[in-house]
């Protein structure tokens, strides 16, 4: 007798999964998936226009509007560029960080959000160590919420500035995005994928423009299941093999703060996954080298590569301000009749 015989399969129609109600506010940017190609094009175009605008004219665009930066995690690039972007458009900004506010006293994200709204904040830029926090904040405040990085989940403005950086090099002069804009382009993202919100936002965004995303890293930092996160994503354990097919290589740092007890042999890691001048010259001598920062020189990337001619790392930082100006402007003007640019 076959004990393992499976019973007769029945036709099962389970209850449907309800559609997401997010984003509630048309000005919000929670996920890289929130933007369609038209919306993406508009943001990239506005980023360029705003960057080239006379600073005095630019400062009148959102004069005296109120934007709050709510930061539960430390940040250099994201915080400063969002702040410069918002101020560049003339807004009044205020920074609330977890260490110098009532968050330390146990105030919840909901109450912090409602407090900021009561103080007149018209949009909130949130950096949180919890995946999904921007969704909670948006649902509770219904304000435009800009996701400045949530836990291990997403960092959509980083993906946008990365896209701008790639287009500058690979598709100069392009003004409208299409589903095949990056056809033929392979982007390797290498390192601590498991804990990376930058990787998740990029792997959601780039395939929609026709790019292939190759994820690279050891099993501990890159589960096989990552390849199923969306179309156009594959996993390659061998960095050299990944480099050989890539026009763009994006290195990520190991997020020591999120390893949760995981022990890694760093010497072994460097042997397999450090981007060295030798490796780059041998396998990807024409590729653009990117890194969202912070860089740990000598670990995932050598100083020579970070500072070398193929590096676009500081360009990425610079693009952050332009992209975030466009995103902040969209947050405060979206959904308004005629005035809406997004």
């Amino acid at each position, binding site marked *: 007798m076959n004990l393992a015989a499976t019973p007769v399969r*029945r036709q099962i129609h389970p209850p449907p999964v309800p559609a997401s109600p997010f984003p509630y506010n048309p000005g919000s940017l929670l996920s890289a998936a929130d933007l369609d190609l038209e919306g993406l094009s508009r943001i990239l175009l506005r980023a360029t226009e705003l960057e080239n605008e006379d600073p005095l004219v630019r400062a009148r665009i959102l004069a005296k509007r109120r934007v709050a930066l709510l930061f539960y995690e430390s940040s250099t690039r994201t915080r400063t560029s969002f702040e410069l972007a918002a101020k560049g458009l003339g807004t009044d900004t205020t920074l609330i960080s977890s260490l110098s506010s009532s968050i330390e006293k146990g105030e*919840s994200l909901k109450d912090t959000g409602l407090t900021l709204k009561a103080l007149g904040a018209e949009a909130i830029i949130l950096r949180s160590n919890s995946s999904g*926090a921007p969704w*909670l904040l948006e649902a509770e405040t219904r304000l435009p919420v800009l996701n400045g990085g949530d836990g291990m989940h997403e960092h959509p403005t980083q993906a946008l500035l990365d896209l701008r950086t790639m287009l500058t090099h690979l598709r100069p002069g392009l003004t409208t995005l299409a589903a095949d804009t990056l056809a033929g382009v392979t982007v390797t993202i290498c390192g601590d994928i498991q804990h990376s919100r930058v990787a998740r936002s990029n792997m959601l965004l780039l395939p929609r423009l026709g790019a292939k995303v190759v994820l690279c890293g050891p099993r501990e930092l890159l589960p096989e299941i990552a390849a*199923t996160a969306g179309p156009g994503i594959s996993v390659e354990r061998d960095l050299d093999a990944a480099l050989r097919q890539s026009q763009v290589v994006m290195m990520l740092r190991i997020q020591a703060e999120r390893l949760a007890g995981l022990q890694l042999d760093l010497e072994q890691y460097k042997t397999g996954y450090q981007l060295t001048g030798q490796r780059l010259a041998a396998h990807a001598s024409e590729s653009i080298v990117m890194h969202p920062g912070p860089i740990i020189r000598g670990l995932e990337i050598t100083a020579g590569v970070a500072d070398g001619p193929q590096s676009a790392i500081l360009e990425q930082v610079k693009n952050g301000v332009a992209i975030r100006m466009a995103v902040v402007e969209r947050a405060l003007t979206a959904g308004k009749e005629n005035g809406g640019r997004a």
Partner: protein
Amino acid sequence: MTALLIRGGHLIDPAAGIDAPKDILLKDGKVSEIAAPGKLKPVNGTEVLDAKGLVVAPGLVDMHVHLREPGQGYKETIATGTAAAAAGGFTAVAAMPNTKPVNDSAETTRWMLSPDRGAVVRVFPIAAATRGSKGEAINDFAALKSAGAVAVSDDGLPILKDNIMRETLAAAARVGLSVIQHAEDTRMTQGGSMNAGAMAFKLGLRGMPAEAESAIVERDIRLVTELRDARAHLHVAHTSTAAALAAVRQARRNGLRVTCEVAPHHFLLTEEHVGSYNTHAKMCPPLRSAADRDAMIEAILDGVVDAIATDHAPHAAHEKEVEFENAPNGITGLETALGLSLRWLHKEWKMPLGRVLSLLSAQPAALLGLKGRGTLTVGSFADVVIFDPKGEWTFNARETRSKSRNTPFDGWTMLGKVRWTISEGRIAFKNETA
């Protein structure tokens, strides 16, 4: 005590094999007479319930609820929890011991059973298996049983140590209690807040692997096999994975006393329902893959599952309105279990009404050894649910009798509107507008 005559209804009593129009007379808290329609005449003082077009069935038995008392009355009290139970058609609920303090003593068990708690249906405490549910020292099961405990469990926490679990199974068998295990190898789920898999990766949440459940179920079945002669009874709480069910299925073929329950959310929802970090889709065990969910449905239809239990776990709104990882596990379920089971198991997946009702009453009553419950034979307790089997309705969480509203089923269409719930001859709930 006044007598109640239920007239014109259709009696479904799966344990007694009755599925026919019958009138029922309830007297002094017991079923007094059952007769063909029109045969029973009300005497003076008999209240008559017109059950025309309605199903009359044994009151439902939920073998897995959290009533939060003692200690967390802001989430739920025994009074509000049993009011929600009555509204959902339940006349008996087995209360898990993860209260504050943990119910690991005869004293707490008696406190829960005191009339001062204001229970409107019967509460059957499940006592902690180990002191403080810490999984180290086994409690005095004989004393707990005589105080009223109907099973032992460290629910919410598994008993990880093999020797402690073996001793728990043996000691419980000696006094005739079953051991209900929350099967989760917590060494594999640390930091996890949803099912491990593609969805968890996408949402950037740490996962709880299916193996964390099946590993403990398999370990426990090994122990029950070793204790075969002692007739140890293992009951697997809120089974959520295909692998755990397969292990239970096999153990049963091997003649072991291994039983299991499944919660409505595990046979209806999947990890996809976490959606955009919906904390009302966060519970432990978590919502699993579609394949696991389908396996729950299969096993219910096949008869491998012994009971539908809600794992009713109320939490205050402010506790759930937080970041997903920080939200407590659990959802309410007492008012939606019948409506969902009838809507999906019966109507959609064609399970006979009697079998659905059996999973919600006769079978859990038998598992807990509740004598005279889960059936309506003459002399049984007058625990009755009367519902309109055709009545479609929409569940509105704001109208819940529970103190909490943490349910993923708000706005869902239900089938089977409860008209009366009768607990030992007293009307515990009525909805005459239905």
